[in-house]
């Protein structure tokens, strides 16, 4: 029998060797594959249930915090202000990829960077709360003012400090409650997410910096800057013809002013009146495509703004205007003469590189598009953030500071891990150009379409916009951009407001609808009741 007993021993040895081999497969060789398996939520849950740092506004209101729960996860993420900061804080969820600051600062909030873990030598030996709290640049009172002023109209408000790029308020409606998606009950979170995703108004999208709109007349500030920077246009010279229609070259449907009115004059005057005909002519015949593209890109168009939030959208300015036809010296006077000039170049072969000499501009197949782009229509599209940066550039002597929402990252004991130092993003224009436009914008707020923006006791400048979407029924995006500061001092706040798809299409729409919202934000910032 002993022979059989020994064989039995060998059999057990083989069986257990089999177990050992499988253990190696599961725990070592195949472990990574199992950990990456789509059904494996262990890593997610570990991450999800961990304590994370808070997010706090500049005036001390808690935007996000971890609350000890125990079951089913150690900590639950809470967003006490609900929808108000949803597009900034984002959410951290069990089933849905994180967004907003939760995503951008995931490591810092979780406390994983090495420099957070080891602040001093003694940290090697003790367990310390290494999470970083995010001190936001946003001010709760200003953010709430933006929400109240916009109300239940779809739109966005962006307010920032032109001197530093610090974002003071950034609000988009419709918004959503991030607590629903952060629900530790994965199924409930999933349902909430699916419902929001299916909403045609897309409340999940932070349109303030992730969606582009026709900027309409607010873009005339960029065109004006391009005009001055190119040397073709000055503050008081040339004086554009007073007319009610502009015929683009080489061909295209005529561009008219709002309500068929006539306007013209020098730069200050056409900005005040928001004169379409004059700016269309300026863009197409005085500046030309190259200088227009250069100026728009100097303001940040066609570039992703370096904001500390994920998935910021690029604002768009067209760069392709078709085949080059010829350099044309325009008769700076009547539209008829300009049209004759174009007839003169009709059918001319492109033989040389475009150049702008002696007041001549290169004309392309689609220069008509440029005329429309110059007034913020056609292929121009901008985020509300981008338009706030346009106003900020004019208020800050031509320099655009990198926009940001996180001011500093602090440890549990109050010590500072990291501070966001203001950085220059772009030089949009020269200081002189900025000064001209600064004065022009103040004039618009005093005498022009942005009178609703004016606040007593402050130096306020603005520019309205009404980006037409359709004529039947007439509706348009109502815009305003502006800045405000104590008299005689640099502006402390730049604002952009868009109210989407408003009824009506007069140039007054922006001033009537959007300006009061911007003014409410300015008043909140300067504590004027």
């Amino acid at each position, binding site marked *: *029998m002993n022979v059989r007993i020994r064989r039995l021993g060998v059999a*057990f040895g083989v*069986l*257990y060797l089999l177990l050992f081999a499988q*253990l190696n497969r599961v*725990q*070592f060789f195949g472990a990574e594959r199992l950990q990456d398996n789509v059904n*494996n939520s262990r890593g997610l849950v570990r991450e999800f249930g961990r304590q994370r740092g808070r997010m706090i506004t500049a005036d001390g209101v808690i935007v996000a915090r971890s609350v000890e729960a125990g079951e089913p996860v150690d900590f639950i993420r809470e967003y006490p202000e609900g929808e108000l900061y949803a597009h900034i804080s984002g959410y951290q969820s069990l089933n849905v990829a994180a967004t907003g600051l939760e995503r951008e600062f995931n490591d810092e909030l979780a406390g994983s960077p090495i420099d957070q873990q080891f602040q001093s030598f003694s940290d090697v030996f003790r367990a310390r709360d290494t999470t970083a709290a995010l001190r936001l640049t946003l001010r709760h009172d200003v953010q709430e003012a933006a929400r109240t002023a916009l109300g239940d109209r779809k739109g966005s408000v962006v307010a920032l400090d032109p001197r530093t790029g610090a974002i003071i308020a950034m609000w988009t409606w419709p918004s959503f409650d991030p607590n629903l998606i952060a629900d530790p009950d994965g199924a409930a979170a999933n349902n909430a997410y699916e419902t929001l995703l299916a909403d045609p108004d897309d409340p999940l999208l932070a349109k303030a910096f992730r969606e582009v709109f026709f900027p309409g007349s607010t873009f005339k500030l960029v065109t004006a800057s391009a005009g001055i920077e190119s040397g073709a246009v000055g503050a008081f010279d040339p004086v554009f013809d007073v007319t009610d229609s502009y015929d683009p070259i080489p061909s295209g449907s005529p561009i008219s002013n709002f309500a068929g009115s006539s306007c013209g004059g020098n730069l200050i005057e056409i900005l005040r009146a928001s004169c379409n005909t004059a700016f269309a002519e300026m863009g197409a015949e005085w500046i030309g495509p190259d200088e227009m593209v250069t100026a728009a890109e100097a303001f940040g168009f066609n570039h992703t703004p370096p904001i500390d939030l994920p998935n910021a959208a690029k604002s768009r300015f067209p760069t392709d205007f078709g085949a080059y036809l010829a350099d044309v010296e325009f008769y700076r006077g009547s539209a008829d003469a300009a049209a004759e000039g174009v007839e003169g170049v009709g059918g001319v072969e492109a033989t040389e590189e475009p150049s702008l000499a002696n007041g001549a501009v290169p004309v392309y197949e689609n220069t008509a598009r440029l005329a429309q782009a110059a007034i913020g229509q056609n292929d121009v599209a901008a985020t509300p953030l981008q338009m706030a940066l346009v106003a900020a550039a004019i208020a800050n002597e031509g320099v655009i500071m990198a926009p940001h929402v996180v001011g500093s990252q602090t440890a549990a004991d109050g010590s500072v891990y990291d501070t966001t130092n203001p950085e220059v993003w772009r030089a949009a224009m020269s200081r002189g150009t900025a000064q001209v436009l600064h004065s022009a914008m103040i004039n618009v707020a005093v005498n022009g379409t942005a009178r609703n923006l004016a606040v007593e006791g402050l130096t306020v400048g603005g520019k309205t916009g009404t980006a037409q979407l359709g004529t039947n029924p007439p509706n348009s995006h109502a815009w305003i951009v502006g800045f405000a500061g104590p008299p005689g001092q640099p502006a402390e706040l730049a604002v952009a407001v868009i109210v989407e798809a408003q009824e009506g299409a007069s140039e007054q729409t922006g001033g009537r609808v959007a300006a009061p919202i911007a003014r409410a934000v300015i008043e909140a910032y300067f504590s004027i009741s």
Partner: protein
Amino acid sequence: MTATSRRRLSRVAPAYAAMKPRRVEAGLVLMVGVIIVVAYALASFGASASIPANLGPFLVWMLALLLIAHLATRRLAPGADPVMLPMALLLNGLGYVMIARLSNDVPGGSDLAGLQSTWTAVGIAAYIGTLVVVPRVRILASYRYLLGIAGMALLALPLVPAFGRQINGARIWASVGPINFQPGEFAKIALAAFFAAYLVESRELLRSRLELRDLAPIGVAWAGSLAVMVLERDLGSSLLFFTLFVVVLWVASERALFLGIGAVLFAGGAVLAWSMFTHVQQRVDIWRDPFASPKGDGFQIVEASFALADGGLTGTGLGQGEPDRIPFVESDFIFAAIGEELGLAGSTAILMTFLVLIGSGLRVALRANRPFEKLFAVGLTTLLGVQAFIIMGGVLRVVPLTGITLPFVSYGGSSLVANYILLALLMRMSHEQRLEPVPSQS
């Protein structure tokens, strides 16, 4: 005992003769005690970053239990193998640490640790009691029919409406008064004794001839196993009993033919079970591809795989994993919890400990003087080794999962007490061999 037999004893087992086995055991038990106490403290530290408040009482209680088990062995079976008891205590202790650690996380598990420590004490009492009650294992052979009937009665007990209770789909529980237990855990020991005694009688016949009626016993065992599976829906026990009988029959008859017949019958039973029961088909489907329904039927196995994968080579550390995600982690799936928190190192240590126990058990069988002891030791060792293999293989997806406890490690009073009785019987036989001349090899 003659002088020659003494010499033969010392020649065959010099290590045992030279080193007093109880002194070896004392050293091993001490090491086991240190391992368990340190593991307990680490598990608490890992989970809550603090030394457990009850570390002092725990230390005293645990060391007292180890010491009592050792001292009782010293008195009742001084000549027995010095390795088996420490190995069993190690498995029991690590299992306890894991259960205590899980009791904080498993829903409704708050008193698991207290109960398991009570069951450990009862188990060790049963171990001592068995050593006292059974001074010589061969007396069990004379009660063979009583044991056989008792074994079958215990197996059938859950089917009696007055006693039986169905928990989690399997009808393997019985309630007698206030006590709930799994009679099958005890039935397996009684049946091992019965099979051994029965086959001692008939093995000469089985060796020399093969007539149709000689196949009757294996047929009966097969039918009995099938009955357990069909009536109690307990695949694991069914497989365990059938394997037990076939292995003991094979060792007794020394005819591989019976292994072949056993394999054919097993295959037949398996096909039959598969075609008759959806829950068997389900088990097989899960085994073939648990990821086909990772949140449904395959959930337990899939989560166990993820737990083991998270463990990696060295584990997440005691108290720092998430084994509570696996359903029934404290009983059937405790191996996955150990693999997660102690890593491949820890799970391999469990495998090795079982191998050492199996080796020691088979050595008892090898050294046994009489056929009954030989077959009984083979039977007990097979029970231990196969049961551990079935559940660890199930967790690791080497074989289809059949719910059964991991001996000494899993939560559960019946399993713990029964396995301590099993251990005591092996220890008793091992001790008896010290007192008697080693037989010539057969």
